[in-house]
């Protein structure tokens, strides 16, 4: 028998076209959280880098944004629960097989650290002994937050991928890079908006590196998953991801070319933030779309079965 590459079957059978797996019931709160969680992580890293290299504007903007994004994240997460008053049930267990449980603890730890760092920004306004005490606490919190930040930025990719949602699960190798890159780019965006040109060079480099990671990851997700890439290229998710890519390109170009202009820098920063937001919503909605059509469940599973049968025959 001749070996032929598997051709995806154009037709498939289903039960009255009804979905097989259930789409996530999460509202756009969760898509928004993907953005704010990443923003908190990127900003915390910006703050730590800024403080370590003597750039107070980056430190201040990073610390304050990290706390703001963290508060927004907490709101989105609690608001999305079916029983918001039971949010603390998340703290009953720590469960390694549940990315959401791990994320709860990552976010809680990060929250304490980033909170301390942001409150320390108010030290000069406080009476001296208290202010003196707060400074070192803030610095410690800032570095602890920066160490926790990569986990905060990437666990959300595992959260989405560890589901039966076909296009999220298939994207698991690259999704963490999309989210890490997106978090870096949004953190860099904050730096570009807040810092004067003499301080903003690291933010520009962060923007370029973050954009590169995000674009690489998104390109792989949109092209290398066969039929499961489709939901990311069509309809609203496709539009959102294309918008994200365009805004990332614009923001990065602006960050590189507009380094003397405060206005161009700020606009570039805003473009990077908008890009991150669009990308997160695109990935979120692409996954939902893949769960709503039984094609994306049946066809890849049939291919997998056919491959296994062929291997069985040969082996």
């Amino acid at each position: 028998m001749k070996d032929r590459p598997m051709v995806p079957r154009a037709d498939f059978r289903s039960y009255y076209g009804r979905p097989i797996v259930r789409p996530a019931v999460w509202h756009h709160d969760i898509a928004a959280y993907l953005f704010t969680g990443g923003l908190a992580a990127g900003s915390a890293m910006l703050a730590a880098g800024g403080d370590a290299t003597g750039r107070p504007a980056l430190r201040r903007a990073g610390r304050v944004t990290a706390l703001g994004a963290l508060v927004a994240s907490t709101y989105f997460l609690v608001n999305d629960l079916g029983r918001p008053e039971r949010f603390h049930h998340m703290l009953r267990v720590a469960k390694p097989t549940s990315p959401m449980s791990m994320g709860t603890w990552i976010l809680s730890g990060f929250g304490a650290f980033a909170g301390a760092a942001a409150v320390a920004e108010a030290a000069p306004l406080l009476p001296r002994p208290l202010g003196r005490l707060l400074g070192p606490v803030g610095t410690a919190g800032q570095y602890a937050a920066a160490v926790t930040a990569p986990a905060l930025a990437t666990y959300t990719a595992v959260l989405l991928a560890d589901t039966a949602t076909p296009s999220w699960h298939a994207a698991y190798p690259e999704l963490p890079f999309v989210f890490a890159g997106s978090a870096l780019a949004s953190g860099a965006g904050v730096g570009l908006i807040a810092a004067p040109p003499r301080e903003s060079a690291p933010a520009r480099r962060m923007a370029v590196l973050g954009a590169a990671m995000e674009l690489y990851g998104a390109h792989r997700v949109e092209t290398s998953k066969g039929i499961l890439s489709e939901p990311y290229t069509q309809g609203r998710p496709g539009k959102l991801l294309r918008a994200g890519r365009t805004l990332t390109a614009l923001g990065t170009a602006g960050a590189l070319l507009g380094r003397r202009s405060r206005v161009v820098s700020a606009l570039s920063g805003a473009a990077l933030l908008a890009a991150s937001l669009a990308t997160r919503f695109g990935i979120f909605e692409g996954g939902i779309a893949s769960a709503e059509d039984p094609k994306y469940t049946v066809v890849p599973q049939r291919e997998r079965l056919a491959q296994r049968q062929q291997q069985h025959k040969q082996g």
Partner: protein
Amino acid sequence: MGANSLYGPLDPAPDAGYVDAPPRMGFFTDTSVCIGCKACEVACKEWNGVPDDGFNLLGHSYDNTGGLSANSWRAVAFIEQPAVVPAGPVDALAEAAAGRSDALAEAGCGGAGTTREPEFLGMPGTDLPGRTPDAPRTDFRWLMMSNVCKHCTHAGCLDVCPTGALFRTEFGTVVVQEDVCNGCGYCIPACPYGVIDQRKDDGRAWKCTLCYDRIGDGLTPACAQACPTQSIQYGELDELRARAAERVEKLKDQGARLYGHDPDDGVGGDGAFFLLLDEPEVYGLPPDPIVATRDLPAMWKRAGLAGLAMAAAVAVSFLGGRR
């Protein structure tokens, strides 16, 4: 955690920490004898106090339930398929007299017929009136299946639940504790069968409990108890598997196949498995489900790599020059 805690064959109750766990209990749903009466749906609702699912006309044959949901823990699927009947009418009574006990089932399902010429014995036939060997009528076959939570060996819903609301019982089944669930919704996309669901006006996740409150007292789950044809069979999983192997052997000429019985499948085998007469996707079941958690170690590895790349990117950004 054992070697197969995330994937592969496993006895789930001892793996979950039960000492001296009772035998694993489950359902074998034999769709070849389902008559679509929906007694299982009704019994489940009555026993478990499950609210109505809306009263809709879906246009999906006789299925107005529309599959499993937070408010339907048993759901009967109806599929009307064209089927070519055998050339001659099958006289079930004559077949039975000749010692073929499966004739009735075969006649009902439009399977392999007999080549023998019919003989009129002066008895009422089981065939359609007016059908003669020289004027065969096209017929359809009606597939019916009572779907239910699979109580997987490796349950995606249970793996991802962040509150511990979902737990493994001593019988190897998977149950939600309604006083713990906070409605995070993670279990819902995690189920490879699309079973567990959020109740809209309540916010929490609900699904079949395999009547945990009945089986603990030695009773049969409500659906199996109410099933008039024993299409739904409840018992020790090992026994059910043996029974199913025999049954599928008998019906293999009619395209019967087992679904969810294999401990080597993508979810480590189901606690509730089926005998089907067509491909799983025809009934709304995934043809080759896998538990997403199988890939969890690989996923965390990729996330760790991305996190390191992120830290390296920040370091490079800040160690560079002033420009």
